[in-house]
C-alpha cells in the first residue's frame, strides 16, 4: 500500500514540472495562436541558467530559490526578445509557418546552449533544506518532491486568480477570442501579446529550473519535453490552464503506475492517452470548439492545368535529370536519389496538407513504416526487392489507414498534434522493440537486388518509382477525388451539404498520402542499405514541412522545388560545426521574408514581368 502511495506522489511531483511548461505553452497558444516548438528550449535554458546561478551563488536555501526565480525571470526576458524580434512578424501567418519558424528558433537555441555550456551533461545541486526524505507509510519520499507537489497547484491558483480577478487577465481572455476587436476597444495588443509570451516563457523557465535537483541538465531536454508538453496541452484543451494541470496529473500518475507493469511504456503512454482523449473529446478535456485553428488564411487561387509551354519545359527538365547520372559522378548520383526521395516525401505531405488541408506534424511515421517494412521484408522474411517495393508502401498505407481513422476526427492544430503523437508512438515502438527493429542500432544490410546494385541502375529504378508517384499524386490532385479533398478543406459545411462524406474522404486522402510517403521510405531504405529510428522521428517530419514551405504550399510545384533546394542546402550545411544555427536562420529568413516560398516567389516574378510587358505594349 505504502509503495503505491509513494508511486502516486512521484507521479504528482512529475506532474508539477510538466504542468509548468505545458501551462506556458497553452497560455501562449490561447492568446497568440502560436504553437511554440521552442518552448522546450526555454525549459532547457531555464535549467541551465538555474544550474549556473545556483552553483555560482552558493547561498544555501535562499540562494537556491533565488537562483531558480532569477533563472525563470531571465528566460522570461529571452522570451520577450523572441516575441519582439520574430513572433510579432508571424502572428498572421498560417500555423504551419509558425511551427516551422519556432522550430528554427529551437535549432538556434540548441547550438547556443552547446556553445555556452558545452556538450557534457551537468548534474545539478540538491535543494538545500529539502535534500532529505520523509517516511510516509514506510516509504521514503524525497522532500523536494513534496515541495514540487505543492508548487503545481499554487501556480495553477496564481494563474487562475490572474486570469479571473485582474483586468489584465480579462483582457488576455478576450484576446484569446478576438484579437482585432480587443485592439479596437483600446487595448495595445502588442504589449498584451508580449506580456503573455513573457509569462509563458517564465513558466517554462521555472519548470526547467525546478528540475535541476531531480534530473541531469542536458542538451536533449528540449525535444524530450516538448513532445510531452504538446500532448498535455492537447489533452487538456488548447488554451486551458486548468486542463493542462489535469492532463499533467493524469499522464504523470498513469505513467507512475504503468511503468510498474510494463517498464517500456513511458515513451508511448502519453501519446496513447492523447489518442484516446481526442477520439472521445475532439477539443481535449477542457477545450472549446473553435480553439483548434490559428489565423485564418487567404483563399487559394483555382488550380490550372499546365499549358503546353509548361509541359515542354517540364519534359526537358526531366530529360536532363534522367541523363544526369551519365554525366555526373556516383557520389552526385546518390545525392540525386536523395533529392528524388525527399521530393516524393514532400509531394505526399503536400497532398495531405495543401490539397487535403490536414496539417501533419508527423508525416515521417509513414515514411518510416515504409522504410522499416522494406528492411524487415528483405532481411527477415526474405522477400525480393521488387515485390517489396509494392508491399512496403502498402504496409505504410495500412499504418496510415489505422492512425488516419483517429486523426480525421479532428482538425487544425489538434489533428496536427495527433499526427505527431502517432509518429512518436511508432518511434517509441521501433526504439524499444529491439528484437524486431534492432532498436537504436537499426536494421543494416538492406541492399537492392543484385541487378540494381550499381548506383546508376538504382538511380533509374528510383527515378521510375519517384516520378511515377509524383505523377500519380499530381493526377489525383486534378481528379474528382483531389477536388473533393480541396472542397472539404475550403468548407466542410458545404461539402457535407452536397452529400460528401467529408471524414471518409479525408481518411482515404490521409491513407493515400501515407502510402506514397511509404514508397519514398522504401526507396530510401534500399538506397542507404539501412534504416534507423530517426527515419520516423520529429526531425524527419519537420524536414518535410520545411521542404513544402520552402517550395511554397500554394503551388503544386512547390514541394518539388522545395525538396530539391532543401537537400542541397542540407548536404552543404551539415558539414559545418554549428550547422543548426545556420539552418535555423535559413528557416527564419524563408518564413519571414518569403512566406509563399520559392514557387510563390517565381509566380510573383512572372506576374511582374507580365505587368511590365503589358505596360510596355499599352
Amino acid at each position, binding site marked *: 500500500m505504502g509503495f503505491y502511495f509513494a508511486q502516486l506522489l512521484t507521479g504528482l511531483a512529475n506532474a508539477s514540472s510538466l504542468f509548468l511548461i505545458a501551462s506556458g505553452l497553452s497560455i501562449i497558444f490561447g492568446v497568440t495562436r502560436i504553437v511554440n516548438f521552442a518552448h522546450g528550449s526555454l525549459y532547457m535554458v531555464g535549467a541551465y541558467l538555474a544550474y549556473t546561478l545556483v552553483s555560482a551563488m552558493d547561498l544555501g536555501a535562499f540562494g537556491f530559490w533565488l537562483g531558480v526565480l532569477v533563472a525563470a525571470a531571465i528566460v522570461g526576458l529571452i522570451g520577450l526578445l523572441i516575441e519582439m524580434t520574430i513572433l510579432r512578424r508571424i502572428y498572421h501567418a498560417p500555423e504551419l509557418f509558425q511551427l516551422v519558424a519556432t522550430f528554427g528558433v529551437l535549432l538556434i537555441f540548441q547550438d547556443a546552449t552547446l556553445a555556452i555550456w558545452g556538450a557534457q551533461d551537468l548534474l545539478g545541486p540538491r535543494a538545500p533544506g529539502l535534500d532529505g526524505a520523509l517516511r510516509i507509510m514506510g516509504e521514503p519520499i524525497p522532500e523536494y518532491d513534496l515541495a514540487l507537489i505543492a508548487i503545481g497547484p499554487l501556480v495553477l491558483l496564481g494563474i487562475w486568480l490572474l486570469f479571473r480577478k485582474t*483586468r489584465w487577465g*480579462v*483582457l488576455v*481572455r*478576450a484576446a*484569446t*477570442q*478576438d484579437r*482585432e*476587436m*480587443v*485592439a*479596437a*476597444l*483600446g*487595448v*495595445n*495588443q502588442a504589449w498584451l501579446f508580449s506580456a503573455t509570451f513573457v509569462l509563458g516563457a517564465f513558466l517554462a523557465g521555472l519548470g526547467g529550473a525546478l528540475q535541476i535537483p531531480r534530473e541531469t541538465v542536458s542538451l536533449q531536454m528540449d525535444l524530450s519535453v516538448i513532445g510531452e508538453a504538446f500532448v498535455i496541452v492537447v489533452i487538456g484543451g488548447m488554451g486551458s490552464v486548468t486542463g493542462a494541470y489535469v492532463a499533467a496529473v493524469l499522464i504523470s500518475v498513469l505513467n507512475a503506475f504503468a511503468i510498474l507493469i510494463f517498464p517500456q511504456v513511458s515513451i508511448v503512454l502519453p501519446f496513447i492517452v492523447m489518442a484516446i482523449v481526442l477520439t472521445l473529446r475532439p477539443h481535449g478535456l477542457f477545450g*472549446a470548439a473553435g480553439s483548434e485553428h490559428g489565423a485564418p488564411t487567404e483563399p487559394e487561387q483555382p488550380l490550372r492545368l499546365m499549358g503546353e509551354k509548361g509541359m515542354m519545359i517540364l519534359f526537358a527538365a526531366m530529360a536532363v535529370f534522367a541523363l544526369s547520372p551519365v554525366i555526373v559522378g556516383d557520389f552526385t548520383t546518390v545525392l540525386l536519389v536523395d533529392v528524388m526521395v525527399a521530393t516524393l516525401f514532400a509531394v505526399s505531405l503536400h497532398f495531405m496538407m495543401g490539397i487535403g488541408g490536414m496539417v501533419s506534424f508527423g508525416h515521417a511515421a509513414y515514411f518510416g513504416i515504409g522504410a522499416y517494412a522494406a528492411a524487415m521484408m528483405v532481411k527477415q522474411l526474405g522477400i525480393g526487392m521488387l515485390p517489396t517495393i509494392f508491399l512496403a508502401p502498402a504496409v505504410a498505407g495500412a499504418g496510415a489507414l489505422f492512425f488516419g481513422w483517429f486523426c480525421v476526427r479532428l482538425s487544425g492544430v489538434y489533428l496536427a498534434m495527433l499526427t505527431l503523437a502517432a509518429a512518436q508512438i511508432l518511434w517509441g515502438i521501433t526504439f524499444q522493440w529491439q528484437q524486431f527493429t534492432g532498436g537504436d542500432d537499426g536494421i543494416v544490410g538492406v541492399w537492392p537486388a543484385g541487378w540494381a546494385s550499381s548506383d546508376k541502375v538504382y538511380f533509374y529504378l528510383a527515378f521510375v518509382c519517384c516520378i511515377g508517384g509524383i505523377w500519380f499524386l499530381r493526377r489525383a490532385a486534378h481528379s474528382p477525388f483531389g477536388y473533393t479533398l480541396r472542397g472539404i478543406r475550403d468548407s466542410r459545411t458545404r461539402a457535407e451539404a452536397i452529400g460528401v462524406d467529408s471524414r471518409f474522404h479525408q481518411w482515404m486522402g490521409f491513407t493515400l498520402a501515407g502510402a506514397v510517403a511509404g514508397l519514398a521510405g522504401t526507396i530510401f531504405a534500399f538506397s542507404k542499405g539501412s534504416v534507423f529510428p530517426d527515419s520516423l522521428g520529429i526531425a524527419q517530419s519537420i524536414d518535410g514541412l520545411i521542404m513544402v514551405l520552402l517550395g511554397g504550399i500554394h503551388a503544386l510545384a512547390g514541394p518539388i522545388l522545395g525538396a530539391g533546394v532543401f537537400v542541397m542546402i542540407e548536404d552543404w550545411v551539415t558539414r559545418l560545426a554549428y550547422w543548426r544555427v545556420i539552418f535555423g536562420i535559413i528557416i527564419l529568413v524563408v518564413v519571414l521574408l518569403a512566406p509563399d516560398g520559392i514557387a510563390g516567389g517565381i509566380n510573383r516574378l512572372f506576374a511582374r514581368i507580365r505587368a511590365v510587358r503589358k505596360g510596355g505594349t499599352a
Partner: protein
Amino acid sequence: MAVLSLKLRMRPPVLEVANLNARYGRAQILHDVSILLGRNEVVALLGRNGAGKTTTMKSIMGMLRQVDGRISYENQDILGKPSYMICRAGIGYVPEERRIFRDLTVEENLEVGRRAKRENAPEWTLERLFDLFPNLRERRSNLGKHLSGGEQQMLTIARTLMGNPAVVLLDEPSEGIAPVIVEQMGFVIAELKRQGLSVLISEQNLHFARLVSDRAYIIEKGQVRYDGSFDDLDQHPEISRKYLAV
C-alpha cells in the same frame, strides 16, 4: 450630382475623412472617399453590400493597412495610428457581426471596453448602461454566448460605450435582428445623440437610417455618390434608385 448641404458643413466637424483610398491586396476598395461628421450629429453611410461602408469604418479605426488620404479627429491626424490609439483618442467602433467575447460574461465583456473618462464625452458606468439596456442587467453574469442575437447586439454597443467615446461608428446595427429589436436600436441611437455623442452609422435599411440619422452619404463601388439630407434624397428618387435601388 452630389447634393451638398452647406449649412451642415458650418459646424466644425469632429471627424473628417478626406480623399481616402483603401486597398485589399491589389483591389482598390475606396476611391477618394470624403466624409464629414459634425459634432453631435448622426450621419448615415448608405450603400449596398460590398460598396465600401465597412472598409470606410475599419479605415477610420486603423484596422486596415493599405490606406492613404487624410483622416482627422478633433483636428488631429489619426491615419496610420494603430486602432488602440484611435480608440483611446475617443472613437468607438461597433462591428458588423457583433463580435462579442463569447466566453466572457456580460460584465467581463464590458470590462474589456472600459477606459478612463474623457472631457469631451459623457461618462458611462455599468449602472447607466444597464439603465439603457435593461436586459443586460438581468444577464450580467451570463456568458456572452448564452445571449440572444438581440442581446448580443446590445452588448456590443454597451461594450463600446464603456470606453466613453465622443464618436461612435456603428456598422450595420440592424442587420440580422428582429424588427422589434431594430426599433429598440433606434431609441438607443436617439439617446446617444441626446447625450451629445456623434454617430456614424452604416446601413442598408433606408427606413431605419432615415429614422435615426440627420443626413446621409451614399457610397457605391467605393465612391461617395450622394451627400445630403433625406429630404433632398426624396426630391431625387433617381439617386436612391440608382445606388440603393430601393
